[in-house]
């Protein structure tokens, strides 16, 4: 049985201009020990689907799913009390902006020990010991002294390490990393990714990595799921996705990687992700897709079989075709 199963998840926001569908029929499957990357542009509903699962969305959001279960627990009709026993303990999350994700009024130690206090049955001394252990685990030097530090005394990379320590406090079975390296500079990015990969290997937890950086995907993940405008458009093993993308959007994303550029100018995908008012009738990618025809513009595409990467496309690309 898989650790996390989500089928046909949709999230609608009640906005001033009417309902807006941020996530549209997404399936997610994660097994114990998996590393799944969810890739997509800003506004493709990557974070929202994870926040929906954690129950962290504001009340304006309506969440529907055919199935949403974690470790055999049905998350759909879990009461707030029961949900709080799961999140932060078996399932935890780290965020994009480490500097603003830590509370400036409390010491790092307080914030790590807080998780331990509410979820585990440890006494004061044990909590302190565990907090030091965690700080060591995420590679923070001089942990005992750093426990007394306030967030503003830490750099971005250190803050993200603290966030990771906090998330790992109760030995979660699933860690969701929501663009954990976006706000960090390049050398620190690599360190944090290595750390996450190492910790995943050591603990055997599952890891969901939300990112818009294909480089991160290639380095870290085993399986990739590409999202576009709230829909999952393709899912493959990393190797397969990079060598043989089936959805034109995936292909275009890969073509835009600097390492793959053949000309002086990087290829781009013209246009932007459709918003609330310009949602196309047929395939959501059709206005930006260079292969689109009338059928694409009129009818929503079917989901192709697994050997075509579950691509949501009328005309999935196969290797023979010219992508560039």
């Amino acid at each position, binding site marked *: 049985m898989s650790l996390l199963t989500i089928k046909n998840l949709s999230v609608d926001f009640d906005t001033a201009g009417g309902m807006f569908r941020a996530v549209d029929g997404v399936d997610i499957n994660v097994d114990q020990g998996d590393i799944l990357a969810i890739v997509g542009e800003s506004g493709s509903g990557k974070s929202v689907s994870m926040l929906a699962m*954690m129950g*962290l969305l504001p009340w304006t959001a309506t969440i529907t799913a055919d199935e949403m279960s974690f470790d055999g627990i049905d998350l759909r009709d879990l009461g707030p009390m029961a*949900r*709080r*026993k*799961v*999140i*932060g*303990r078996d399932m*935890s*999350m780290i*965020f994009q*902006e480490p500097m*603003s*994700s*830590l*509370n*400036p*009024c*409390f010491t790092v130690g307080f914030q790590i020990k*807080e*998780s331990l206090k*509410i*979820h585990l049955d440890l006494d004061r001394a044990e909590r302190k010991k565990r907090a030091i252990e965690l700080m060591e685990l995420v590679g923070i030097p001089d942990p005992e002294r750093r426990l007394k530090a*306030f967030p*503003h005394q830490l750099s971005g990379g250190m803050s993200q390490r603290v*966030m990771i320590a*906090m998330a790992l406090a109760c030995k979660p079975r699933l860690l969701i990393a929501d663009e954990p390296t976006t706000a960090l500079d390049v050398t620190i990015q690599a360190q944090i990714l290595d750390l996450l990969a190492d910790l995943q290997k050591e603990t055997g937890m599952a890891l969901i990595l939300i990112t818009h950086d294909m480089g991160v995907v290639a380095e870290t993940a085993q399986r990739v799921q590409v999202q576009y405008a709230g829909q999952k458009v393709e899912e493959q093993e990393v190797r397969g996705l990079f060598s043989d993308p089936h959805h034109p959007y995936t292909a275009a994303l890969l073509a835009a990687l600097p390492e793959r550029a053949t000309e002086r100018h990087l290829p781009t995908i013209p246009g932007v992700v459709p918003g609330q008012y310009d949602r196309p009738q047929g395939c959501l990618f059709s206005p930006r897709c260079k292969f689109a025809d009338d059928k694409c513009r009129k009818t929503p595409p079917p989901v192709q079989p697994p050997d075509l990467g579950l691509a949501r496309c009328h005309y999935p690309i196969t290797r023979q075709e010219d992508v560039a």
Partner: protein
Amino acid sequence: MLRFLISRLLTFIPTFIGVCIISFAFIRVLPGDPIVVMAGERGLSDERYQEMVEQFGFDRPLIVQFWDFFTGVLQGDLGTSFVTKRPVFDEFFALFPATLELSFCAIVIAIVLGLPAGVIAAVNRGKFFDRALMSSALVGYSMPIFWWALLLIIIFSGNLGWTPVSGRIDLLYFFPPVTGFMLIDSLLSGQDGAFTSAVRHLILPSIVLATIPLAVIARQTRSAMLEVLGEDYIRTARSKGLAPPRVNGLHALRNAMIPVITVIGLSVGMLLAGAILTETIFSWPGIGKWMVDSIYRRDYPVVQGGLLMVALMVMVVNLIVDLTYGLINPKIRKR
């Protein structure tokens, strides 16, 4: 922390000099002559008038008069009241405990009710409770204080007879002031019912005086909380599985406290500066009433001395507020 304190104290000096100048100048700018006022309706002869001018030193240049006042202040001498012939300092400290007691009770009421009200309103933003609370806060804020006081007196003292109309304690009880605070003195006196009587006298004026600060604190807490609740670290706190009371009451409120503390500090200053209307309506023997009376009498030493003392109190409160910022938010401490 010590350096911070010292640098704050140093900024006291220019403020203090400024306050001295303003309080000295203020009463002299007003038309009216203290000697004429003292003489009353009978009036007085020109020779006697001249004599009094010399006696009070009004014939000397203003700058010399100010220097006298200022050097006096530095030696802890605020002068003597023209009317009562008692030192201003003594009069101030005889009356100040009454004001302090009333202000303290009022601010406690305002904080104890205002903070939770603001937090609850922010958490239930846009819902019934939020709207009801914020509209009543607006009503409380804009209601004329004297009318509100009279309304409460009519209902609770007049119709229901629950509380006395005025004063600090029933005439039945007498004991010498020890601390000047009626609540403490009545307890110390050991007389049966004295304390209850003091509380019953204190309750209505405190509520009246608390109304505006309560409304301001509730609204400020709400808006500060709304801002903080959108912060990333609140999402982090919730993602840890913390219960809403802990997220809102600890993680959010602590960050929202900075603007709230500022407002509390300003309110305390305002209350200390003499809750003039409230003290007048309830015949509360505090400094507000004392100052107003002395302005009518053109009692120069009392007005300037009283103003100076009140300003000092406000400065001290503000200093405490500044120090509290550092306690709440460690980031400010470092600057």
